[in-house]
């Protein structure tokens, strides 16, 4: 895509920025404009979505990161105050060798605001819109009427992805983004969430909201969209990921990649892992090495190291079997390490760089 000059002043624009150049490595998703990130609870899907947004911005793109579940996770991760229903600039990408880094904007979408905006935009429902609110319809429609909520949330994402927005401006209609990353609901609900017109079918068989849902679906089903699934190498998340991919295929929604998150360090080779598991590691050699490195050696230490190695080897074996299952899904796979000190801003940039190196962005 294009390398644009950053609109905010924090990053100096580089005269060497070339259009369309990609000297480091190519991305696996050149045509994708909307990246939807889902995952089972506890797998770190919001972290991955944020890292992906940063990674895309590091390619010089201007990126919009959206959340739809109302828990202000983006604000917490990026350490900014709670986000309004408005596109806000929250970070810049890593300036890479390609020249200037792009920017990450964030948008917190809530159904109530989306409905009011929708009514104002399409129906010029100034007075009636307020009347609806007074009669509790807004409340009703957004918390109860099933499907409507999802149409509103996805509809707003669709708005942001629409052509015809202006680039690099902060006009009311919003600027045009090179990429949008959606921190979506969890895997168990993702097909239902994106398959908005399917969900509505039983309720609204015709009428404007149905039409709106159909329009949104054309974007979601197009090659401009990719739905990525985040997992960890444990049985249940992997199973759920495989099921999720199946459901997405069935709903004819475009599956992107699988991001394997929280991967344990791989400091030991396969043979060493076997030895660790079977208890055949060379204890004397290890003791000698430790002494030569100036470590005070006692039984507790060496026993401890060997036990840790054994546990690690067992976990790794389990991870390998789950990794094999992930490979069977047959989509591109990206791996992110578990950061021992947790994820902060620095950690997010680290993860973004890792995603970029692997060609996800």
């Amino acid at each position: 895509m294009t390398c644009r000059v950053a609109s905010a002043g924090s990053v100096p624009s580089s005269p060497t920025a070339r259009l369309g150049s990609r000297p480091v490595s190519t991305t696996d998703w050149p045509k994708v404009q909307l990246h939807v990130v889902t995952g089972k609870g506890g797998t770190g899907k919001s972290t991955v979505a944020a890292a992906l947004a940063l990674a895309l911005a590091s390619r010089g793109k201007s990126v919009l990161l959206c959340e739809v579940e109302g828990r202000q996770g983006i604000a917490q991760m990026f350490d900014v105050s709670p986000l309004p229903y408005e596109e806000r600039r929250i970070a810049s990408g890593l300036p890479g060798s390609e020249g200037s880094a792009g920017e990450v904007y964030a948008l917190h979408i809530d159904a109530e605001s989306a409905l009011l905006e929708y009514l104002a935009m399409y129906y010029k429902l100034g007075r009636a819109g307020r009347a609806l609110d007074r009669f509790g319809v807004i409340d009703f429609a957004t918390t109860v009427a099933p499907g409507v909520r999802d149409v509103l949330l996805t509809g707003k994402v669709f708005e942001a992805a629409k052509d015809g927005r202006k680039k690099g401006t902060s006009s009311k209609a919003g600027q045009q983004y090179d990429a949008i990353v959606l921190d979506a609901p969890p895997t168990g609900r993702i097909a239902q969430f994106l398959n908005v017109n399917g969900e509505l079918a039983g309720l609204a068989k015709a009428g404007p909201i149905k039409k709106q849902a159909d329009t949104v679906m054309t974007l979601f089903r197009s090659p401009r969209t990719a739905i990525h699934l985040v997992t960890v190498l444990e049985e249940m998340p992997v199973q759920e990921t495989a099921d999720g991919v199946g459901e997405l295929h069935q709903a004819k929604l475009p599956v992107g990649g699988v991001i394997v998150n929280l991967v344990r360090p791989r400091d030991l080779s396969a043979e060493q892992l076997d030895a660790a598991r079977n208890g055949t590691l060379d204890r004397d050699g290890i003791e000698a090495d430790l002494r030569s490195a100036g470590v005070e050696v006692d039984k507790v230490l060496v026993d401890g190291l060997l036990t840790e190695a054994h546990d690690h080897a067992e976990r790794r074996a389990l991870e390998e079997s789950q990794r094999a299952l992930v490979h069977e899904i047959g989509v591109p796979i990206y791996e992110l390490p578990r950061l021992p000190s947790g994820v902060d801003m620095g950690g997010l940039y680290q993860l973004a760089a890792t995603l970029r190196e692997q060609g996800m962005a």
Partner: protein
Amino acid sequence: MSRQRTRVGPLASTGEVAPTLDIDALLDNPATEIIVCCGSGGVGKTTTSASLALRAAERGRKVVVLTIDPARRLAQSMGIEALDNTPRPVAGVADGTGSLDAMMLDMKRTFDEVVESQASPEKAKQILENPFYIALSSSFAGTQEYMAMEKLGQLYRDAKQSGAYDLIVVDTPPSRSALDFLDAPERLSSFLDGKFIRLLLAPARGPARIMTAGFGLITNALTKILGATVLQDLQMFVAAFDTLFGGFRQRAQKTYELLQAEGTAFLVIAAPEPDALREAAYFVDRLSGENMPLAGLVVNRAGIRPESELSADEAMAAVERLARRDGGAEVTAGLLRLHADRVRIVERETGLRARFAAANPRVATAVVPALATDVHDLDGLRRIGSLLAGPAA
């Protein structure tokens, strides 16, 4: 200021050790009739509830465990992979005076059953076939939580009557927020009491004069947006459902009271991660606000503190010294790196837990170390159970 006090960082605050949660005392106490396991998604609620139920059964309680969404192999090993919304005995529980039944919640079926029990067959049929009911019963945010509560109420009433169980262990639905479970009945009530619902009911109930100008305005707007048939369907649904509303509200209220009763114990489940512990803190706060009996906090998947005192920095320094030598020590370097990694994780988790304890000093806590393998059979559940009970057990 205080001169003697050392700097208090997360690691220095060793004074903030949470009291230990005595799981066996909780399970053995005959006054404990219901245990509710709450927590945000992905923290191991289902495994914890199943482990608690098994341990209680093998300690002599007559237990039924209500699970929501167990991993496939775990469900198979408990014999509940088929959804039939009735508790089934679990095979392989150690002989004794206790027993263990398990069931998996079928949300839609539970809802249907409530409708069928409350309405005449004709009316029930009308409701069950309405598109709004179908959507509401299968995807209304909160239906799962509400139905888990409904089922808990049913199980409790049945248990009291038949004496089949003396302990019910409840797993809660996998939601982003642990609070959703407590909010569900309230949300349903506010839906049923909503102005809009009452408006829709107005024409069916009374004189046409209620059809105010305002109502005309909104029906017009809704027809414009949704199409005319939708409004008709909705009106039919609300009218048919109207007679059930009272019953629904009453049941929700009763179950809510049950949760406040003395025989109920809430366990908040968390992982040693900032998000999960933050959710746990909200929940603890909420429980005390609602006078609901909190038994304690279970921290799952904790890193295991190494026995040796070699610090992460020392280990990494040794790795560097080994690297300066001419090879040959990859294994040792690898082990040291693993050790450093583990120490860092444990330190971080300990810090997070200490912060939680500092803010919630009276919450008894049980810490379950991470297992090297996944749990999907009764033996695994037994292991978790004994880890929950602590090293003394």
